[in-house]
């Protein structure tokens, strides 16, 4: 324990010295999030300073090995870092699908060469990744995937279309599921990596009900992908994808949970001053659920760190976390009243409350719908028949 306590002191000192005051304030919106990549632009000096400090310390990916740009922290150390960052409200230095999704898959399935190359790029925020899974007409049903890579010897030629690719228009590379064997419906899919600047790749943003366009349609028209750019075995991409989906679910469930899932009643009280008694009761019951879920998030991460817990548990976290987050925003809209309805007024930061509320409605759809999560829990955890 004293080693860990020494580590805690070290972390505290390091944070005190390296995390700028500005980076300790709550994120106000997408503009405060740093995603890295070739076209990355810092929106403040503080953001840049904080990112560089973390990058150099390996704290963009604290528990990855040092060889791949991480800090090589143990599970216990990583938890301490998380706790200390949370206690000063430190922002994430780098948000990245590379860290949350591709990275864990590469750590498990990648060759040594791939790890060195791609993981280091990810850790250093050099390449921004997007994910190509869903296709039009095959929302939750990945088995019906049509995008095809024709085998041309040392490369594939990929044709097809993906949908719901988050930030495809801002990403540098894509990790993508491509059918490489039409004779096998459930297998025959390969997990490929390629540059979004490859000839034949184009993207088109999808306008959402929130008025924003975080997702794209992505088109592949005779896209050449070298054979070495696949992860795991050829025609066994489904194993990689499933593993990765688990991590995506952890990440999305984090959106409604983690240490940030404090109660909202107190925040709303400060914001609006007076709360209707029936609404207050709703907030109180929400806070019960949110604080309980927060404990679950901690328990879940603790168990993940030591390999305990059911392997399908991320599905439960994703389900509960996203449903909670939707409810949180419903209540925030109710508390905000008519002011929160405003769509583009300056006073509301251009309709931040309303747009944020609408955005949360996708939480229980993207990365596997709530219905799919419940199916998985029923089948894999409860072992119900025919599920």
């Amino acid at each position: 324990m004293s080693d860990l306590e020494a580590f805690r002191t070290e972390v505290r000192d390091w944070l005190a010295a390296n995390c700028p005051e500005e980076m300790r304030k709550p994120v106000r919106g997408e503009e405060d999030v740093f995603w890295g990549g070739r076209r990355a632009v810092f929106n403040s000096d503080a953001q840049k300073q904080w990112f560089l400090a973390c990058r150099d310390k390996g704290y963009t990916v604290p528990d990855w090995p040092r060889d791949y740009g991480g800090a090589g922290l143990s599970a216990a150390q990583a938890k301490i870092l998380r706790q200390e960052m949370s206690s000063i409200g430190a922002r994430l230095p780098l948000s990245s699908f590379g860290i949350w999704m591709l990275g864990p898959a590469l750590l498990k399935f990648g060759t040594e060469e791939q790890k060195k190359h791609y993981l280091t790029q990810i850790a250093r925020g050099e390449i921004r990744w997007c994910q190509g899974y869903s296709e039009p007409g095959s929302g939750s049903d990945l088995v019906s995937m049509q995008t095809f890579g024709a085998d041309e010897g040392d490369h594939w030629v990929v044709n097809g279309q993906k949908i719901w690719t988050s930030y495809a228009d801002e990403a540098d590379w894509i990790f993508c599921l491509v059918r490489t064997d039409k004779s096998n419906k459930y297998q025959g899919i390969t997990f490929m990596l390629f540059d979004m600047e490859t000839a034949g790749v184009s993207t088109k943003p999808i306008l959402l009900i929130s008025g924003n366009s975080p997702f794209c349609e992505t088109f592949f028209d005779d896209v050449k992908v070298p054979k070495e750019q696949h992860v795991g075995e050829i025609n066994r991409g489904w194993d990689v994808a499933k593993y990765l989906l688990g991590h995506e679910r952890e990440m999305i469930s984090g959106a409604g949970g983690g240490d940030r899932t404090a109660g909202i009643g107190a925040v709303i009280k400060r914001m609006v001053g007076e709360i209707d008694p029936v609404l207050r009761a709703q907030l109180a019951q929400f806070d019960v659920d949110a604080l309980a879920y927060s404990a679950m998030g901690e328990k879940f991460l603790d168990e993940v760190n030591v390999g305990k817990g059911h392997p399908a548990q991320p599905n439960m976290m994703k389900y509960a976390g996203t449903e909670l987050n939707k409810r949180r925003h419903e209540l925030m809209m109710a508390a905000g009243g008519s002011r929160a309805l405003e769509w583009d007024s300056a006073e509301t930061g251009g309709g931040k409350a309303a747009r944020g509320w609408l955005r949360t409605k996708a939480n229980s759809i993207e990365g596997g719908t709530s219905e799919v999560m419940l199916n998985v829990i029923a089948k894999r955890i409860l072992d119900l028949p025919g599920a």
Partner: protein
Amino acid sequence: MPLYHDDDQAMLADSARQFMADEGAITKQLRHWRDRDCKDGFGHGLWKQFAEMGFTGMLVAENDGGLGMGHVEAGIVLEEIGRNLTPSPFLTSSVLAATALAHGSDDARGRWLPGLIAGDSVFAVAIDEGGKHRPERIKTRAQKSGNGFRLSGQKDFVLQGASADMLVVAARTSGDDNDEGGITLFAVPRDAANMTHEAVRLVDSSMATHTKFADVELDGDAVIGEVDGGRAVLNQMLMAGRIGAAAEGVGVASGAMDMTVDYLKQRKQFGKLIGEFQALQHRAAHLYSEVEIARAATIKAAQLLDAGSEKADLMASVAKAKVAQAAGLAVREGVQMHGGIGMTDEYDIGLFMKRDRALQEFLGDQYYHAGRVAELSGY
């Protein structure tokens, strides 16, 4: 009176349904005006058509040139408005302001009602102060000044405030902020000096204002009803408006539900129509049950109001709260069951979610009205 539509009402429902589906359709009205960033949030041409259909003056007494119908009938039109998300000033003008003006002097009725009936005028009501509906507390003040009054204060969530020819303003002429009495209603014309509107577009593409009154001078004949005696008329307006908003909400809920049930019959996943999945079937069936019950509560409330029953106030809150629950469920289930495409602007289901949110808030949300049910029941 039985709780279903009699023959005349059924005929009205048919023609309102046909008219709104044709002329008030989403592409023709809501998307049309929204995509053009229309400053009114609705089309004046449609408002004239409302007049031709006899909708604008349906609640106005026959003596005043209207049709002298009741809130059940207004609810029939509002349900179709809701089903088609038709933007119009019907609720604020033909329900709320018309209810107030029924208590106005001969002069006031003669001045304002013909324009309403003809579909030439648009009215707004200025009740709320602050983000939440709390009409028990009114701070906006009108002070005696010569023969008239000087009005000061701010009103929020004034739907159609900037495009209205006249605003019905609830102001305090005596007493403290939280007093029951001391309220007076004023008909404030659009050209009143020292009245400024900050217009904001809302999530459902409708327009509302934060309206400031900085010593707005009003003649004595701007008063609707009695000086200091406006609370009773205000309560009458609130009942009419809440039941009307509930009726519109039933339409929003039904429209969202129908669109979703249709989708369940078309969309395939995992080799099956998603409507075959029992989990979705049960949720859809539960939703149906909630929407039916909400509709019954709304018709009952309208009947009680038409009958002048003292139970109308309680039932108005029941209806407003129940509809908010049912419609909220309908739009949430609607978006979720549509999956990814439900999140896109291209599909209409998201528009139902947006409209529902604004309508929920108007004249008190489900929490406010549940609380009111408790208070009116003595606990």
